[in-house]
């Protein structure tokens, strides 16, 4: 920069009139949208970790039987309410690989509880790829090989055993098969309906809106309680618990949509007045397109948050329903069923490990939350 005598400054660097094309990789330009989103998502560490955790959880589902040392309804009648056991590696300063100490139960008829004594003199190494009870790999292939199991004469209750001597750890793994799948169906149903009706009501307004709103009002003013009661009488008795639960979660979804629909509608009522929506319409975009491409993305954050929030509700929905005789029941295993068994003081104070199923729920829900947040952030145009 040079100062001229008349007091002005002039830039001296060589100047050209060409458009200088800023250097952005070409590949970037051709990358489809999801690649760009994925690149952004990768930078959201917590979201990424959560995603991986969930992925692993889901991948594990078909192999739950293999990983679990026991089958879900396998009872060890000599080990009722056994406390969690640790897997040790060193015995008296000596490394001998993973092993457990055998335990011995005695009924304490003074305090009426089971007490366990650990025999720390006899380390019993775990067995790997051993034979145990039969389960079905992928729900199809019968197999009886387990990743690890207890040695003869000992048990391996990583997270203790319950009232009937069933392994809590194994049950949690099996429970995941139901809790992580069937429960989510309800969310899908409710979201599909909620978004669909909410958006057409909000976008079209007028008579459509009126009609949908009345349906929403009516649906909402009919409390679910009597419906459940009626339903519990109407379900054919030879339906398995899973089938009943499946139907219930769908109905839960069907009943659940109005809340979301109203949120969507209210937002769309104002969004539809936005200039870019008008612009899209003036270009000839059909309502479906306007809703999908212009309106919904602007409500994505809310939707993602709502979806995450529905997950615990759906997983736990059955615990509330079982008050009405409708939840999942044995022999089906789900986290809700397990927690249902744990809903008493003894589980809190004396056998706290029976309430462990709370942990996976919290972990899964948090993972979904962070995943959702990562997704939201990577869809956010204002974030680089």
């Amino acid at each position: 920069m040079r100062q001229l005598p008349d007091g002005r400054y002039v830039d001296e660097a060589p100047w050209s009139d060409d458009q200088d094309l800023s250097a952005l990789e070409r590949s970037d330009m051709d990358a489809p949208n999801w690649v760009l989103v994925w690149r952004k998502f990768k930078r959201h560490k917590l979201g990424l970790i959560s995603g991986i955790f969930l992925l692993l959880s889901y991948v594990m589902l078909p192999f739950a039987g293999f990983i679990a040392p026991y089958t879900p309804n396998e009872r060890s009648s000599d080990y009722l309410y056994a406390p969690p056991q640790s897997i040790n590696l060193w015995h008296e300063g000596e490394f001998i690989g993973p092993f457990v100490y055998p335990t011995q139960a005695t009924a304490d008829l003074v305090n009426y509880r089971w007490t366990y004594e650990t025999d720390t003199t006899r380390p019993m190494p775990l067995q790997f790829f051993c034979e145990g009870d039969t389960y079905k790999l992928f729900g199809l292939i019968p197999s009886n090989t387990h990743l690890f199991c207890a040695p003869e004469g000992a048990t391996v209750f990583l997270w203790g055993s319950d009232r009937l001597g069933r392994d809590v750890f194994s049950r949690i793994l099996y429970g995941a098969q139901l809790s992580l799948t069937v429960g989510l169906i309800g969310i899908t149903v409710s979201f599909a309906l909620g978004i669909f009706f909410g958006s057409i009501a909000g976008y079209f307004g007028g008579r459509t809106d009126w009609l949908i709103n009345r349906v929403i009002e009516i649906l909402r003013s009919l409390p679910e309680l009597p419906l459940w009661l009626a339903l519990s009488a109407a379900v054919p008795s030879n339906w398995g618990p899973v089938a009943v639960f499946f139907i219930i979660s769908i109905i839960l979804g069907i009943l659940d949509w109005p809340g979301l629909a109203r949120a969507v509608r209210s937002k769309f009522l104002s969004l539809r007045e936005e200039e870019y929506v008008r612009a899209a319409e003036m270009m000839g975009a059909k309502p479906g397109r306007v809703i999908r491409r212009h309106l919904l993305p602007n409500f994505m954050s809310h939707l993602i948050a709502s979806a995450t929030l529905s997950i615990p509700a759906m997983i736990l929905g059955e615990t509330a329903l079982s008050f009405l005789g409708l939840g999942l029941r044995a022999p089906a295993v789900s986290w809700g069923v397990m927690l249902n068994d744990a809903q008493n003081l003894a589980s809190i104070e004396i056998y706290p490990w029976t309430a462990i199923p709370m942990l996976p729920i919290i972990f899964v829900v948090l993972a979904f939350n962070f995943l959702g947040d990562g997704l939201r952030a990577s869809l956010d145009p204002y974030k680089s």
Partner: protein
Amino acid sequence: MVTPLLDVRDLSIGFGSAPAIVRDVSFQVMPGETVALVGESGSGKTITCRSVLRILPPTARIDSGAITFTAGGQSCNLLTETRRMMRQIRGNRISMIFQEPMRSLSPLHRLGDQVAEVLRLHRDMSKAKAKARVLETFVRVGFPEPARVWKSYPFEMSGGMRQRAMIAMAMVAKPELLIADEPTTALDVTTQAQVLGLIKDLQKETGMAVILVTHDLGVVANMAEQVVVMNKGRVMERGPAPVVLGAPAHGYTRKLFAAAPAIPEVAAPARAQPGNDIILELRDVSKTYTMRAGGWSRPVGITACHEVNLSLERGKTLAVVGESGSGKTTCARIALGAELPDAGGQVLFRPSSNADVVKIHDMNSEERVCFQRQAQMVFQDPYSSLSPRMRIGQTLTEPMEIHGLGSKSERREKAAEMLRWVGLDPSMLTRYPHAFSGGQRQRLSIARALTLDPVLLVCDEPTSALDVSVQDQILCLLENIRDRMGLSYLFISHDLAVVARIADEVAVMRQGVIVEQAPPDTLFYNPRHPYTRALIAAQPEPDVNRPIDLKLVAKGAGAPGSWPEPFRFEGIAVPALTELEPGHKVRCHV
């Protein structure tokens, strides 16, 4: 030597990990002085201004530099000051008029509330006092009905009105430094003169300094003491206005100044040939809005336009100029069927010379789709007409997708091509709309409108945010397409020079009615209507030696009730539009 009020030194700003976009920018602002920031669209003017208030996008990073603000004997570096201090400074000592006022106002709050907030925040004023002050400012920025503005929501206002509200917000607290980022783009020249006059008054009154970003070299010539010319993020040349404007030293400056258009001196009027291939015709179009502002009280009706008759010939350009808020945008929207005219109004469209007439105000869905392919609009407010969550690539290909044109890669190619046409780089396709400069967005809007190869294009102030050289480029492009493909334009603008260049016919609007209509040559040769004359007189010229008297021209032609007898009218009891000479219509009592 006086310490400068604001001293920007070696400022470099970049986004994300990309190389810096603003590089080593330095300039000073003395108290009471006006510094004009001119330069190429996208050269970093807005970013520089925003960095003064430290209101930058979250992805921006400041690489180096210092911004020293000295007031009351104390100086501080605005880039490192605490947030608390910054809050003390923002709005109070330094205030800013954002470039895109339409987007910058909260849609849910009344304008009065938004403007008065500054006063209540920094001036500790009572509600009533603040209101009085705000209403007064409203009048000074050219609102005839300040009370209505006070309770209006932004979406009820025209583009220019929103811009004026924004100006009022920035000036109402009488700051020490005003940063005005293209404050008058949406204003007609008389209103512009009024606003500029107001700024000057305030400068005189309070010693306020101004950083004025503008593309209008006429405004620069009339306002600035200092000029900073920017290009590609660097300062090309800076110095006192007379020297820089008078004898530009830098190549870019010279190029820029050369591109400035001017209203031609018309020697003899050229008679237009009355054509008969009308592509678009507005017949007796009126539009009345009901204000939401009323709340519980009786709804108030606003007549946005009144019995507008326009016809656009195929392959020609019909320009509409006029007062801000006079209903130009409304007419444009009605012309494209985005809004329905009041009963009795008709909008007729003939897709090709021998095709049937389509009634735009009464289309079935089939006709609508067909029409929407052929007629496109460039919106006055490009920011809000671009979907914020769509990448530009998607936005540009969307029209083609909707109408099922081309394959995926063809569409993308076309989008890239369009960007090149409007002088943007195809690598920007993956960006979101917010990551563009105001002028760039305006060009995106034009590019999008062109992707479908329409036969009718409605341009609502398409070049207001463009520097003169880019504007020239865009106008050339438009002319080019028109000549090549027989495109017809309905062209709304405030810039009479642009209108003079591109239009085949000009309609002048005031208060919802057309007051004069003629081919540009006729009009500029012999403006008959007092309002037209006022407009022409108020157009600033890029010559420091021929300043216009802002005070005088700001008066414009005054209210219609004060016009000379043949033109005078009150309310909507207007005289008829009479053809004084062939092709020259004026609204007057003969």
